[in-house]
């Protein structure tokens, strides 16, 4: 009997072991891409990495940071790089983000392609100035029940240079059951002239990896790191009227922009429509009223979509798109700046175009 059992175990282990060995050998030969060279902008920067990882993470390892708001999930389409030498077919995960010209010119999503051979790429020079910053949480403010403001004091480098409206990519650490380290985009809400610290305004997303980390794990004094600055969402230099539209944490870039405009003593006409559900979702109202006093021509208009029946809310009710027309004087001389959820942006942009506003800029948090 014992012999039979041992016999069985040995045979089973033998078959299992043989298959496992086969897999290990296959893995060694198949998944080993050896060392690969990456060449950026025709020799401007060159290094060797171990093959097998995504181009995005291989570059980040060598301190070259490509915008990647979704953290490499293939959903933001921001991590484009131009390949100077083809490395294989475009993947279905990339297609939705590439237009005809880009496909023709060898533009690819760097988070989707793996480094399996020597790679030659071209990226905008400006990306070389993106750095990794280390700092400490200086303080955390509760703006609403689900929105927090996080001040980060910089340790290394000590100063950051950016344009109001740009964003950084915050890096999380492992916590609880989450074994993944992720990076997510957050707009800076502090003005550029406060060079030694930044503020981020972060809304809790149920089950969100980063937002739960920030809301529940992060405390004053904790170390934290981010890369940046990224993005093209900043005020265009002109004399045109401006309409800002935001919802929720979309407040962040406008807080920075307004403080910057205040410092420059801007004379431009600005209307800021801020969408929220109820009064509980409003925040920084006093700060906005302060800007109404200090800026030459600024109006802040909170709009509640689900104001409580019994509340004494006297402001605007409903949704922003239908009331936009009340605030546009001369569409040809008006710029739209939108920030928040993709849904809000899509309908607002459509409405603005309908009203004849051609220059609409936005940052989608999707």
């Amino acid at each position: 009997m014992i012999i039979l059992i041992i016999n069985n175990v040995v045979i089973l282990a033998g078959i299992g072991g043989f298959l496992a060995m086969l897999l290990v050998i296959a893995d060694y030969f198949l998944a080993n891409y050896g060392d690969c060279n990456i060449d950026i902008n025709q020799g401007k920067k060159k290094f060797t990495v171990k093959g097998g990882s995504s181009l995005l993470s291989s570059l980040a390892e060598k301190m070259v940071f490509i915008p990647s708001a979704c953290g490499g999930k293939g959903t933001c389409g921001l991590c484009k790089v131009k390949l100077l030498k083809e490395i294989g077919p475009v993947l279905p995960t990339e297609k939705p983000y590439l237009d005809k010209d880009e496909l023709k010119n060898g533009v690819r999503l760097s988070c989707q392609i793996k480094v399996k051979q020597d790679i030659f790429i071209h990226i905008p020079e400006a990306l070389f100035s993106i750095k990794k910053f280390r700092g400490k949480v200086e303080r955390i403010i509760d703006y609403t029940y689900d929105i927090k403001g996080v001040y980060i004091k910089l340790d290394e480098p000590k100063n950051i240079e950016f344009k109001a409206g740009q964003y950084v990519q915050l890096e999380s650490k492992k916590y609880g059951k989450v074994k993944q380290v992720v990076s997510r985009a957050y707009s800076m809400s502090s003005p550029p002239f406060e060079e030694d610290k930044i503020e981020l305004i972060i809304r809790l997303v149920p089950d969100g990896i980063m937002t739960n980390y920030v809301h529940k794990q992060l405390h004053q004094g904790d170390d934290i790191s981010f890369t940046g600055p990224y993005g093209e969402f900043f005020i265009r230099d002109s004399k045109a009227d401006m309409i800002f539209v935001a919802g929720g944490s979309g407040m962040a870039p406008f807080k920075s922009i307004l403080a910057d405009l205040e410092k420059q003593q801007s004379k431009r006409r600005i209307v800021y429509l801020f969408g929220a559900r109820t009064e509980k979702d409003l925040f920084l109202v006093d700060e906005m009223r302060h800007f109404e006093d200090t800026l030459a021509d600024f109006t802040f208009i909170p709009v509640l979509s689900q104001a409580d029946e019994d509340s004494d809310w006297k402001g605007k009710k409903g949704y922003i798109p239908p009331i936009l027309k009340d605030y546009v004087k001369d569409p040809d001389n008006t710029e739209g700046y939108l920030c928040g959820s993709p849904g809000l942006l899509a309908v607002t942009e459509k409405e603005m175009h309908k009203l004849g506003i051609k220059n609409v800029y936005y940052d989608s948090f999707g």
Partner: protein
Amino acid sequence: MEINSYVIFFAAIFTSNILLTNFLGMCSYLSVSRELESSFGLGMAVFFVLTVTSALNYIIYHYILVPLDLVYLQYIVFIIVIAAFVQLAEMVIERFSPLLYYSLGIFLPLITVNCAILGVSLFLVIRQYSFIQSVAYGAGSGIGWLFAIMMLAGIRNRVKDKYLPKGMAGAAISLLATGIMALAFIGFSGVVIIQ
């Protein structure tokens, strides 16, 4: 034993469709059949894995388990072989065809637990098929499964925006459609019998 391999191949697609007559491989069939494209991807992966694992399991059964008198270990061994093969297939595909990897890749791990795969390996032992017959049966069953899931996906696409009583939406209507399909397929079964 006498049945021609071609007959087995076609019978496995139509008259003895593994999904519609044995109702094996139901859970991925029901959960992935929402879109035609992904149904096709999963179906192709099942076809590929079924064909190869039926050959592998035939060899292991007849040249290792039978001589050593260990046929009662077949369940465990078959599952290990299937799991290992799926892993290997994933690696090979990733290396040589990233495009295929992305369209199949997410479905491959699902296949390890698709009971149609284990079912086919067990049937070919019970029915005492030869090597060629086994491969024909495996490939045929794979194509049969691909057929079934594509058809359900097509039906679900049509039913999607039609009015349905509350309790009927989702899994209920899919199961009903499967039942009706099964009836239609059983209509073929007088043509040839392979079990």
